[in-house]
């Protein structure tokens, strides 16, 4: 099971973390003891350091990627935690089932989806991944194995959903799938030029569209003069033929020394995305609808050796117009601009995890090329807006937030600490627990 020392990378950051690697292939394995520094690693699709453990040990979960049971009548699916959502889709869609919640990439593991309590375009109706989790097994560094569900070990269940891999290792999990008629999605798109209009469109779509999200041009500072595209969709009814999934495009085979996304292209890219002619409605295969970025392998390398940051926040609905307006204003005011900016209204579901990120409000995700101190200052500025609004920053996408920002956004962190496995830790956790308040 030991694999020596290996380099691990997250999705956004170029620097590798050196960790002792363990790759179990069978569920009955034992955790290595490593002085309180063990961390499960899924597929490294987190952007920052929450999946990294420099100097410690990493349990590489991709060796545990088996299906355990799939009831095609009830849609209950149990898998080992290292299975990718991509592999799950390949098995379930042809049999009339779909993921109850999916993030914007299908190359994440089941365990990673739980540990960040991931959300998708259906949060307003379906809540987050944790809401569809029936149970899982939690392996702790003391060798105990607990089955956790809403009824059994419910406190461990809540701590582990969104628990950033720190409460122990999820060996397998059971989820409830949703029935669909096939791979086709009915889609609609509408332009908007005003933040209020975005909120109106979201409200109007709330009951009738399972999936909603918007793309906005982050180079325009005025919330009353924006450019945005509102996407909404539903699984298509029976008998709707789905177009074929588009062919994958080759990505960069290695990381170029310089960014291929210089600030010069941000503005035209945003303009073209907005202005590109699009049919107001259509039928799409689920892949381009949910996972447009997955088409290009290793697209993150386009940002060059310096890499990039993501800044994803959520702010309460009542202050969303001002706060989101201020965030976009600040990004537009720098020429660091964000290439891809996504807005979505979250639903009112009560989060299941102690540290779940998704909560009622409006979420904005920005990607920010790493231009050194300027980028860090910009993001600290964005954090201030989010904190004033009473919001939170998403740990899965973070590589730099201040400990105070984390603690304010996740007020149950102390309660969470009592469930953290004393044998587990991560780069992220050591950073946000630093006593620099």
């Amino acid at each position, binding site marked *: *099971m*030991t*694999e*020596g020392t290996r380099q691990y990378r997250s999705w956004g950051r170029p620097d590798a973390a050196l960790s002792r690697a363990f*790759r179990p*292939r*069978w*569920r*009955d394995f034992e955790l290595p003891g490593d002085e309180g520094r063990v961390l499960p690693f899924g597929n490294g699709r987190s952007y920052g350091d929450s999946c990294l453990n420099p100097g410690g040990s990493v349990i590489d979960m991709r060796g545990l990627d*088996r*299906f*355990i*049971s*799939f009831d095609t009548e009830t849609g209950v699916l149990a898998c080992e935690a290292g299975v990718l959502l991509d592999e799950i889709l390949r*098995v379930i869609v042809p049999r009339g089932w779909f993921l109850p919640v999916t993030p914007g990439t299908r190359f994440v593991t089941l365990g990673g989806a739980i540990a960040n309590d991931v959300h998708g375009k259906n949060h307003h109706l379906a809540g987050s991944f944790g809401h569809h989790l029936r149970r899982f097994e939690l392996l702790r560094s003391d060798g105990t194995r607990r089955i956790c569900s809403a009824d059994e070990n419910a406190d461990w269940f809540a701590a582990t959903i969104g628990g950033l891999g720190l409460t122990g290792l999820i060996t397998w999990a059971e989820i409830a799938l949703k029935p669909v008629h096939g791979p086709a999605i009915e889609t609609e798109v509408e332009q908007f030029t005003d933040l209020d209009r975005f909120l109106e469109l979201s409200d109007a779509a709330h009951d009738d569209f399972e999936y909603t999200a918007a793309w906005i041009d982050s180079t325009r500072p005025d919330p009353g003069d924006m450019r945005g595209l509102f996407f909404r969709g539903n699984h298509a009814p029976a008998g709707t033929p789905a177009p074929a999934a588009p062919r994958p495009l080759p990505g960069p085979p290695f990381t170029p020394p310089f960014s291929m996304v210089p600030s010069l292209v941000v503005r035209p890219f945003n303009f073209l995305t907005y202005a590109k002619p699009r049919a107001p409605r259509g039928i799409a295969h689920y892949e381009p609808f949910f996972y447009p970025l997955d088409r290009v392998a290793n697209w993150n390398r386009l940002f060059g050796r310096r890499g990039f940051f993501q800044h994803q926040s959520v702010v309460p609905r009542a202050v969303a117009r001002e706060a989101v307006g201020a965030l976009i204003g600040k990004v537009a005011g720098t020429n660091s601009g964000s290439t891809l900016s996504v807005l979505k209204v979250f639903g009112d579901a009560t989060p299941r995890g102690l540290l779940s990120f998704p909560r009622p409000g409006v979420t904005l995700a920005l990607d920010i090329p790493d231009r050194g101190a300027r980028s860090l200052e910009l993001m600290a500025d964005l954090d201030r807006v989010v904190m004033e609004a009473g919001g939170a920053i998403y740990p899965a996408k973070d590589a730099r937030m201040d400990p105070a920002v984390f603690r304010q956004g996740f007020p149950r962190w102390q309660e969470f600490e009592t469930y953290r496995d004393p044998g587990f830790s991560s780069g992220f956790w050591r950073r946000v627990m630093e006593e620099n308040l």
Partner: protein
Amino acid sequence: MTNVLIVGAASAIAEATARLFAEEGCRLFLVGRRAERLAVLCDDLKSRGAEQTASHELDMNDFEGHEAMLAAAENSIGPIDIAYIAHGTLPDQKACQDDVDLTLQEFRTNALSTIALLTRLANDFERRRTGTIAVITSVAGDRGRESNYVYGAAKAAVDSYLEGMRQRLHKSGVRVVTIKPGFVDTPMTAAFDKGLLWAKPDAVAQRIHRAITKGGDVIYVPAFWRLIMLVIRSIPRRIFKAIKL
């Protein structure tokens, strides 16, 4: 419906290949040393689409057990269309040099157990005049090297056996596929540092599956190993004996 017998089914390469058979809806009979692991694999392959899965616990060095295993396979999934033999160990060359028993034990696992099974399979397939027998050997069998010639010799024995068997069974329409992997990242090689020459089991399995279902006599996986081994085999012996490989 294709009936596939997989020996050494818990091997990482065999498992990755079994998934491709499962997706095609084959019936699978898995043979390995540990029943509980085979059960884990059966559940997985069933979910992935296998029409039927069954398993049989057997240490392949128990030659007496081969016949009963083959009978159990036929009983449970029917006559075998594809026999895929993947089990093996990577001997500690240094330890073997000081230990005759260990050397013979490794030879037993990597050569004799396979040859014993092939003897039975060849007759069975020849009688039924159909099917494919595929065996994983190794690039290591292409030329003995100081660093692992116990392993290399065992794999070479199987290579030669298969070469002859292929001629014999060709007349009966039975295909024999020799599979020679290079470096593959599996539990067998967990302790090695991995560089550019290393392949993942998934990629290797795709090529193996294609050779078994579509055609090929002796395949190298990944394919570039054919070239590497051509070079290694063509090094003149007076030079070869003086270098470290």
